[in-house]
């Protein structure tokens, strides 16, 4: 997902050229509730196209429609890929609308850069765990505004004073006259009423849906019965299925190809060259795949990345000895290190990682006459829309993009290049067919297709004084930039520093008088991308394990040391104390088990985890239990917060234990789940989640559960075995040691 967007973000102007508006996330967060009020104005009615595609019902504003039978349809501008956003956004709107929860449905909003922009990005898109944070005020205002319109409609119909009308659980009532009605009969009249310029929002003490423990997710029944439909399941009449033969090395191009055998495969309809490779279009997946197997392609690899992971990392390691671009400097870190009684030093290595969402990537495109339509699990909708439009030579308004449920993403569906939408559009264009085209990626395409979490090398140094106090800290990060050269560069790269490379290190909360962070940005010829929790995937690991090394050196308890260094950070401290307390930090454990702790803030949410670890099969860590504490502001749906922490922990743990994408002479070694191993059920620890009660505006939970798990496990492992693991994944680190 997208890194902390605290700075202006791109907005598509025409084609793929992006322009930057000036939205500041911190200002937006500060302005809180007032925000939605201004922005929802002028959005009252959906334009014709959207209204026509919508099911029956009156649009009271851009986010809610009410049908004659009282069904309340909430339009989600954010994609649902497992994080629970459909349920969360609908809860917030329904809360202020005083809707009957059982009548609430959720639908994906159509792609629209104006009405459905992420207020932190300026484009429509989901990432950086911002869906709730940017929508909170907007969805509350949308709900309250719609409620006021229903009340006004009832007042007019019943000829009573609006101030005497109450609304609860989907029923509008006037006690004096004894009249009442559901939303359905009032909807048409309400839609014709001018929305109020200002609406009062509830005091949190009045919430009946927000914070409820028993509010089920809207998507769970269909997903439990195999009825949920994803891009892979989507079809339109006459549709062809396409797979593309991609080059074996990044940056290579098609030199020539022979498709004679491929065309003989029954069901294969067409073979065409596209900028991404050679596409085989067929009547179905299997024929397309068999056709691709039968292709022979010569690749021009003159511009390709031919280095292996080992060479790339060796290059990074050399840079750790030279000063990089300054990211943060408090006090005099070098001076303090030089004067320290004891200096600790450690170097860390992190591999390329693939996202491997459970549903492989895909996109359906239908090219019509002067217009087009696309269906996909689109995470940056208006970037995908603009890219398809540019490839097809259309205005973005002529491309209707439908966001479908996605089987996971973890950031992969949010490419600034709109790679999947672009490939689908390129195939449809090259084929020149009136038949709709469904592009699908196999798992091999996915694992080998790039857009990885980049590799990094970190070097950390710490200075202790004669009493063992931490007086100096310096962190050097070496790695490529994710956003340089993309439309996100202007927003996320300042003075040559890509904030997604250093977040978590640059924001280290510990009270250390002399603290420095610097960065070497080293390009690699591989498509790179944010991966669930972005920079925090590596910075939380190095900072939190290094701090434990320091605690050991100083003879201090790791929780005690953190407590002392976090005195000025109450929210970090709050989750640390909660997790440590619930985990029984310091109490005896069964023989052969130790505890480890880590605390980290990401995307304005605070998470601490305490793990219990023993030596498991094959000498690998076995994680028995995780106690997790999270502070994400007001808890909209506590059960979903727990689910996201559980999921983040399992996702992060699987990668830390097993996963890496290894380049060998530029070729990706891994290809599928047998060698890009995911966490499996027998490796999943028991997870216990505790939520800090908070009145702060809600922040995200999709990513923040990930960063602490790997360092917490490494810290327990170091206590257990005396071994500090400084290279991920564990599997490789432990293999190379033995």
């Amino acid at each position: 997902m997208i890194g902390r967007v605290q700075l202006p973000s791109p907005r598509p102007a025409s084609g793929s050229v992006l322009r930057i508006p000036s939205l500041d996330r911190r200002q937006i967060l500060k302005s809180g509730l007032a925000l939605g009020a201004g922005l929802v104005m002028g959005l009252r009615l959906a334009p014709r196209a959207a209204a026509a595609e919508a099911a029956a019902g009156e649009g009271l504003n851009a986010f809610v429609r009410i049908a004659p039978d009282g069904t309340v349809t909430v339009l989600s501008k954010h994609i649902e890929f497992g994080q629970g956003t459909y349920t969360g956004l609908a809860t917030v709107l329904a809360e202020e609308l005083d809707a009957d929860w059982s009548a609430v449905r959720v639908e994906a909003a159509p792609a629209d850069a104006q009405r459905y922009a992420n207020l932190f990005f300026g484009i429509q898109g989901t990432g950086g765990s911002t869906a709730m944070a940017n929508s909170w005020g907007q969805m509350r205002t949308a709900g309250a505004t719609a409620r006021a319109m229903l009340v006004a409609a009832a007042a007019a119909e019943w000829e009573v004073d609006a101030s005497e009308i109450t609304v609860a659980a989907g029923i509008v009532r006037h006690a004096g006259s004894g009249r009442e009605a559901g939303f359905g009969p009032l909807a048409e009249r309400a839609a014709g009423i001018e929305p109020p310029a200002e609406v009062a929002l509830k005091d949190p003490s009045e919430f009946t849906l927000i914070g409820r423990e028993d509010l089920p997710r809207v998507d769970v029944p269909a997903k439990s019965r195999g009825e949920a439909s994803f891009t892979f399941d989507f079809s339109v009449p006459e549709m062809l299925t396409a797979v593309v033969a991609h080059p074996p090395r990044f940056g290579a191009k098609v030199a020539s190809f022979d498709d004679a055998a491929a065309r003989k495969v029954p069901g294969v309809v067409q073979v065409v060259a596209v900028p991404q490779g050679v596409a085989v279009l067929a009547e179905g997946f299997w024929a397309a795949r068999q056709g691709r197997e039968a292709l022979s392609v010569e690749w021009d690899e003159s511009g390709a990345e031919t280095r292996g992971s080992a060479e790339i990392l060796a290059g990074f390691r050399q840079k750790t000895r030279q000063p990089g671009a300054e990211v943060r400097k408090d006090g005099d870190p070098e001076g303090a290190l030089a004067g320290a009684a004891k200096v600790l030093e450690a170097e860390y290595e992190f591999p390329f990682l693939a996202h491997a969402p459970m549903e492989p990537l895909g996109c359906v495109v239908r090219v019509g006459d002067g217009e087009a339509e696309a269906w996909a699990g689109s995470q940056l909708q208006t970037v995908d829309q603009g890219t398809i439009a540019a490839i097809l030579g259309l205005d973005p308004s002529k491309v209707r993009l439908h966001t479908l449920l996605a089987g996971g993403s973890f950031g992969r569906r949010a490419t600034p290049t709109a790679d999947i939408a672009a490939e689908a559009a390129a195939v449809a264009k090259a084929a020149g067919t009136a038949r709709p085209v469904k592009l699908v990626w196999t798992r091999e395409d996915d694992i080998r297709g790039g857009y990885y979490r980049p590799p990094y090398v970190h070097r950390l140094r710490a200075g202790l004084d004669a009493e063992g106090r931490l007086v100096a800290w310096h962190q050097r990060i070496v790695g490529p930039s994710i956003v340089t050269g993309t439309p996100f560069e202007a927003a996320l790269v300042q003075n040559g520093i890509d904030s997604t490379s250093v977040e978590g290190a640059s924001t280290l909360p510990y009270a250390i008088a002399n603290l420095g962070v610097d960065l070497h940005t080293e390009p690699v010829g591989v498509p790179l991308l944010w991966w669930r929790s972005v920079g925090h995937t590596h910075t939380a690991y190095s900072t939190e394990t290094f701090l434990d090394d320091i605690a050991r050196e100083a003879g201090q308890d790791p929780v005690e040391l953190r407590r002392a260094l976090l005195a000025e950070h109450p929210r970090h401290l709050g989750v640390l104390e909660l997790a440590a307390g619930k985990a029984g930090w310091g109490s005896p454990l069964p023989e052969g088990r130790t505890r480890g702790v880590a605390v980290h803030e990401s995307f304005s949410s605070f998470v601490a985890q305490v793990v219990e670890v023993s030596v498991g099969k094959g000498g690998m860590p076995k994680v028995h239990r995780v106690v997790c504490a999270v502070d994400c502001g007001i808890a909209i749906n506590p059960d979903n917060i727990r689910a996201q922490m559980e999921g983040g922990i399992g996702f992060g743990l699987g990668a830390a234990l097993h996963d890496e994408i290894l380049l060998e002479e530029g070729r990706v070694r891994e290809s599928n789940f047998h060698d890009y191993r995911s966490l499996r059920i027998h490796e999943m620890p028991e997870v216990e989640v505790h939520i800090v009660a908070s009145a702060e505006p809600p922040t995200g939970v999709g990513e923040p559960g990930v960063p602490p798990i790997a360092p917490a496990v490494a810290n327990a492992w170091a206590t257990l075995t005396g071994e500090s693991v400084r290279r991920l994944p564990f599997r490789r680190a432990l293999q190379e040691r033995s």
Partner: protein
Amino acid sequence: MKVTIDVNGETRELEAEAGTPLLWVLRESLGLTGTKFGCGVAQCGACTVHLDGRPVRSCVMPVESVGDRRVTTIEGLSGDVADAVRTSWEEIQVPQCGYCQSGQVMTTIALLSRDRSPDDDAIDGALAGNICRCATYPRIRRAVHGAAGRLKGGRG
């Protein structure tokens, strides 16, 4: 090639190239898209269906090798075990993205059909071949126990 297979209690006759995996016949020829594609190499379990009640990976099973065995997909489930599993799945709120869940549910039903009170090790053993990238594993475990409890009449 003409193939005749029994899917969800109906005899279906269809055309397919020899070697086509059952998965694609179900999804594309019969429109039964509840069975998912996740890896194509019997590594993830997303494509799990039942053959005579036993779980198999339909992505690596050539359609002609099905023979006269009964194929059951998630669309064709019925009976007390299926009901208990679906109810428990909803009660525990298992799914996140949902994409792996058909496979998880199919494997669980096959497990509970032969072992009505599996312990955690039995659950882990049966489900180790079903990847969930969203890591809904703790809830899957709870939901399997919940369904087992229902079947014993202990709950619901």
